[in-house]
């Protein structure tokens, strides 16, 4: 539904359904005077057109999708390339590199302590082999002899899954809360705003580890919901929860601004109920903000998961994630940097792609058309 045009100073001018004199504001000059050609086309079509012209943003979207696809193809990598299953601990193993036999973990190897393999002092996992070992240990091994590249892909699956799912859940929850809060106003608005404020009052990371730790002690067993403590749903729940005010507050502000516009009054007068007004009238008008915010929250969710897992309050071992890998590698930084290095590169690349694409999306959706140089 279109928003009503600004009120005309000359109230008595009746519209015949066609164009009437419209008021000009000097600041919107060039955009207005070029705008008559694009009348009649919906904002989404225009946005799509602008986005299609933004090659950089599209390229980075491609990079992101590529990363996702690669991670999804993790099992294929194992079966076709590395032939080392994800959790295969191969501390004592030997691999053929350029014809010679090399210990996967050299200088000391491992010993078994309490049933777990532990590196004896000085043990160094093999570094990045690239092509030399015929597909095995392309990026090197970690402290338990596992293939870093394989874990990178499987870890990526988890990190991306958590990031995207948390962002989706968070966005849906925030949108509903913002709509309800702004539409109903009064005590409902007050409660929901205080709810936002309270979450906002905690430093993100602290709240994340507080919730993450509390939940991973025992899992979550209340009512019908039973989540065990190693489940991926714990970090997902934590991250979705923590970012609620980051979407909820700005959205609530935007919806509030629209709440009292005439088109809402008109819809109410036509008998539309709250649900219809919220979802068919208000939501489409903030849809572009929601899209942009969603993209940014995915990026932040991935980074948050990495942080939480690094500290031990996110994904729990032995599940791999990019964050746990960085943490595992931090102890072996000088001798086996590959364990921490590659996950970080993967994260930076993924998040960068999301940020660049998010920027491009925001530029495309911005109603104030940008003016660019053309020749002539």
């Amino acid at each position, binding site marked *: 539904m279109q928003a009503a045009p600004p009120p005309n100073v000359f109230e008595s001018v009746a519209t015949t359904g066609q164009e009437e004199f419209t008021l000009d504001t000097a600041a919107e000059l060039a955009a207005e005077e070029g705008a008559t050609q694009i009348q009649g086309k919906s904002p989404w079509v225009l946005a799509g057109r602008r986005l299609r012209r933004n090659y950089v943003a599209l390229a980075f979207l491609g990079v992101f999708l590529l990363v996702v696809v690669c991670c999804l193809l993790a099992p294929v990598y194992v079966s076709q390339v590395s032939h080392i299953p994800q959790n295969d601990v191969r501390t004592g193993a030997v691999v053929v590199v350029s014809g010679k036999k090399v210990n996967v973990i050299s200088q000391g190897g491992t010993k078994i302590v309490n049933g777990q393999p532990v590196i004896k002092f000085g043990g160094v996992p093999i570094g990045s082999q690239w092509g030399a070992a015929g597909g095995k240990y392309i990026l090197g091994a970690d402290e338990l002899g596992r293939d870093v590249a394989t874990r990178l892909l499987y870890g990526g699956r988890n990190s991306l899954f958590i990031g995207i799912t948390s962002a989706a859940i968070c966005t849906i929850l925030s949108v509903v809360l913002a709509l309800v809060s702004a539409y109903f106003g009064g005590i409902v608005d007050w409660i929901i705003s205080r709810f936002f404020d309270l979450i906002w009052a905690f430093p993100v990371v602290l709240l994340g580890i507080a919730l993450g730790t509390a939940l991973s002690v025992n899992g979550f067993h209340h009512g019908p919901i039973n989540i065990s403590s190693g489940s991926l749903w714990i970090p997902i729940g934590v991250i979705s929860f923590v970012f609620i005010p980051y979407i909820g507050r700005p959205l609530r502000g935007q919806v509030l601004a629209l709440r009292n516009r005439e088109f809402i009054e008109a819809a109410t007068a036509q008998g539309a109920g709250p649900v219809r007004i919220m979802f068919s009238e208000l939501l489409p008008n903030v849809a572009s903000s929601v899209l942009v915010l969603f993209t940014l929250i995915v990026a932040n969710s991935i980074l948050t998961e990495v942080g939480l897992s*690094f500290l031990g309050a996110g994904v729990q071992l032995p599940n791999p994630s990019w964050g746990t890998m960085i943490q595992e590698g931090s102890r072996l930084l000088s001798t086996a940097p590959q364990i921490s290095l590659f996950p970080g590169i993967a994260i930076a690349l993924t998040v960068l792609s999301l940020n660049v694409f998010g920027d491009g999306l925001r530029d495309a959706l911005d109603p104030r058309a940008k003016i660019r140089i053309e020749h002539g």
Partner: protein
Amino acid sequence: MVAYIIRRIFGMLLVLLAVSFIVYFIFIVIPGGDPAQRIAGKVATQANILAIRQKLGLDRSFIVQWYDLVKALFTAKLVSYSNQTNVVGQIKQGLPATFSLAIGAGIIWFGFGVLVGTISAVTAGRISDRAITALALIGISMPVAWLGLILRFFLAGDGGSGVSWFPDGSYVPLTSNPAQWFYHLILPWFTLAVLFIGFYGRVLRSNILDTINEDFVRTAKAKGLSTHRILVKHVLRASLIPIVTLFGLDFASVLGGGAIITETVYNLHGVGWYAAQSIQSEDLPPLMGVTLFGAMFIVVFSLLVDIAYAYLDPRIRLS
């Protein structure tokens, strides 16, 4: 104005009360199971558990429990059960490192963020802008943990690359050796600041570009003011207000122990580091304490930021 402040202080106290309730909720109620056992931690003995149960009044009602918890927190009697240390005492010990990290990094990130954002906006579209934007995007895309490790690897004593320009983490108190204190903090400051510089630079750039299109800037131009004056007195003045708000809250967050990862990577024994240690041992009282500590800083700084905002924007002041 004074009435406004008093009202806000009351509100703040209410929020802190609610925050303490949430902390209670998170650590006692959410996990379910036996709270006493949980608080006692992994290496608990039966005697520990019984003692906790009695001390925290876990056999008493919901509200009484909460009240006792708050009392314990505020009277500094909250004790960690896995190593028998007093939580509040430990937090106090972590303050110098955390504050040193926060204040230094804060100055750096605010100063550079404003500088970078302004340059980027004023030269919009040109090489300097593109380069800054690219660097900023990369800066906000790197996980802090990884950045810290990379810097340590390449530039600090740990370095497998052999370069040892900087010491490898750990905190030297200001009072014992100012030069070393500074030297040891350079890498942590930089690591923490990078993310914020990138973010603030972009936000400021966006604000400035929006403000330049405002009507009052057009008027300033029409008055024949110099470009420099328009930029500083009109454009920046308006564009910086949201940045001040953001900075207040981010700074509060770091002061309150929110820079856990940086402190951990560089082995700075601050408040955040203390919290990180407790995660491994699933030791809950320290986490409760630090969480409350962090929230307290944010709530107080929220109030300070609102007051600053009222000072900067007279429309708020007089309404």
